[in-house]
């Protein structure tokens, strides 16, 4: 067996183990040399990214991979107890790609952005740990493992949000975040315990196979849904999100997008896979709940973004609005799936909506991430966070301005950027469920454009202000990080068909049909 085959076989474990090893080694290397440590972190994340690509190729070609820890067989003894295992299907690897792109860009961005701060050993260790948590959440095939990774994510991101401990607002935001996410995670654990008590299993596939939608299952579903939606920042549980995003360092905000979307992944996984066999049983379709939450999220997000004056806080509310599109797309699909009278073949728009929702997960991560990096660059150059004190920056910061324009167009769904492709999918498919849905979605998009045009005018246009005469373009590492994300945005926008067919389509298929996920358990079929 060649080295590459070995790498793919052990890939699932290495995806977690490598960043974890890096996290423990970072403080040791940091004692030797700062530059070496930064390089080390980037290399570790780069190798992880390559591994994810290798695994993705394998998964898209030959279906889900399971990796059992500590043994070769998933069963212990009499085929009743299941070991801890990772189960990676197309959706998992799709989310992992998003996470690793964000982490990788954040590591490059941090090189210059965080340079002047102290405690960077811990910063980088926590960044790697956050990546571990994020990847673990999307890759694991075990409910309790999911909870553990959820908590790893919460703890490390809380410490990173409160990184500027000398700023009162940062500490407050960190405290709010940890309270909210701990309570959410505890309810997730409660739901896991309820499921465990009934079915004596923690494995997602095993649970999905044996779930009956009894009353206890309903309570577990509610707990999981509410807690994970809170982690995903869905209105009206979104209030922690602007606080956390705006007070964290810009590079951390970038990775936080990934953790938020890991929460959304949890919602999708629970609804489609864990409760996939009983998807038609609830009398009120969960899809409609998702759709209504999505619409609320969009509207509240844009209206609140309109009145913000803090640069990053405004983007954070914009990010909240973007989250609504994903819920709308996925919820539209769920309404059709949960309706026993309509099959998927009769309503092809449902699949398109799901593709749109999932594609938008990727696009939102890139767009909002780029905008956060621009906000960080503006802060780095001017030391100002309020939009009211900015102006005329385009004269001195040419590249940053270009990146902001790209982000602006992408986030508001203007062609040829990637946001347009996914939003087009969502508009045209939700229209067939109910025209009002797509009208609200388009309205929210228009308002997003208006909001970011306002930011563009306030920060980058206008006369050359005397206080910003000496402002210089930001260092290369930050430009490179922004450039990587911007390149992805343009690439996804110009060749949407390629991207949708290669990575989004398998992910949507994996979500709609959970037999692939249960395959190792039921032995084919």
């Amino acid at each position: 067996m060649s080295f590459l085959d070995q790498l793919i076989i052990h890939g699932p474990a290495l995806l977690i183990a490598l960043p974890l090893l890096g996290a423990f080694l970072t403080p040791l290397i940091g004692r030797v040399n700062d530059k070496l440590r930064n390089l080390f972190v980037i290399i570790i994340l780069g190798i992880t990214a390559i591994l994810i690509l290798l695994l993705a190729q394998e998964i898209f070609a030959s279906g889900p991979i399971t990796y059992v820890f500590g043994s070769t067989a998933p069963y212990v003894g009499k085929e009743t107890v299941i070991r801890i295992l990772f189960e990676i299907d197309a959706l998992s690897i799709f989310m992992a790609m998003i996470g690793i792109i964000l982490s990788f860009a954040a590591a490059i961005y941090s090189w210059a952005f965080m340079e002047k701060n102290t405690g960077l050993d811990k910063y980088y260790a926590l960044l790697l740990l956050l990546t571990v948590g994020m990847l673990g959440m999307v890759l694991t095939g075990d409910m309790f493992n999911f909870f553990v990774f959820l908590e790893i994510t919460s703890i490390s991101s809380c410490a990173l949000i409160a990184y500027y401990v000398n700023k009162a607002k940062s500490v407050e935001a960190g405290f709010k975040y940890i309270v909210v996410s701990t309570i959410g995670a505890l309810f997730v654990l409660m739901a896991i315990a309820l499921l465990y008590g009934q079915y004596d299993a923690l494995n997602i596939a095993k649970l999905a196979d044996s779930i009956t939608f009894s009353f206890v299952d309903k309570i577990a579903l509610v707990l999981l849904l509410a807690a994970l939606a809170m982690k995903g920042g869905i209105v009206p549980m979104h209030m922690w999100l602007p606080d956390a995003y705006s007070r964290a360092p810009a590079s951390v905000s970038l990775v936080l997008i990934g953790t938020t979307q890991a929460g959304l992944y949890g919602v999708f996984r629970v609804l489609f896979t864990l409760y996939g066999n009983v998807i038609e049983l609830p009398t009120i379709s969960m899809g409609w709940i998702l759709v209504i939450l999505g619409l609320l999220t969009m509207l509240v997000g844009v209206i609140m973004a309109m009145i913000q004056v803090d640069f990053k806080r405004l983007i954070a509310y914009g990010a909240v609005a973007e989250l609504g599109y994903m819920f709308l797309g996925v919820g539209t699909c769920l309404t059709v799936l949960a309706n026993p009278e309509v099959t998927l073949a009769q309503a092809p728009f449902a699949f398109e909506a799901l593709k749109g929702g999932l594609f938008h997960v990727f696009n939102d991560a890139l767009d909002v991430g780029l905008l956060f990096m621009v906000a960080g660059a503006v802060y780095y150059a001017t030391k100002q966070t309020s939009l009211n004190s900015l102006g005329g920056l385009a004269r001195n910061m040419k590249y940053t301005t270009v990146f902001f324009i790209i982000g602006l167009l992408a986030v508001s769904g203007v062609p040829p950027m990637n946001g347009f492709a996914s939003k087009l999918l969502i508009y045209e498919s939700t229209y067939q469920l109910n025209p009002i849905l797509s009208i609200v979605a388009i309205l929210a998009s228009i308002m997003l454009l208006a909001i970011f045009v306002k930011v563009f005018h306030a920060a980058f246009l206008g006369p050359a202000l005397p206080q910003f005469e000496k402002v210089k373009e930001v260092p290369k590492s930050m430009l490179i990080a922004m450039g990587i994300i911007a390149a992805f945005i343009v690439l996804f926008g110009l060749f949407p068909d390629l991207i949708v067919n290669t990575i989004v389509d398998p992910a949507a298929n994996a979500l709609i049909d959970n037999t692939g996920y249960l395959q190792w358990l039921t032995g084919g079929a």
Partner: protein
Amino acid sequence: MIANIPYLAVVGLIVIGLSAVLFRKNIIKMIIGITLIEAGVNLFLITLGYREGSIAPIWTSSPGGVMAYPVPQALTLTSIVIGVAVTALMLSLAIHIYRHHGTLDVRKIGGDDQ
């Protein structure tokens, strides 16, 4: 009836903890509330693994017989480990908040704008 008492205790602990988080204005009391919720969830997990007349799952010179189900205990331990980390983090943030504001009353600390 007697077998249901632990479950009632679980509900009680979670409700008390949630009400502490919702209605107490002192950060330390809110942290206590969160640890109470955690205790409730842990108690629930432990109760799931209970078997009547069983012994503790300790292998060194065990007398034999039915052992309590060890998996929920392992889960509880993991959850406690995480709980310790979270509590430590929250308390150290509380120290920092106190240092910045000189108070732990959430009303006086004041929220973020909007």
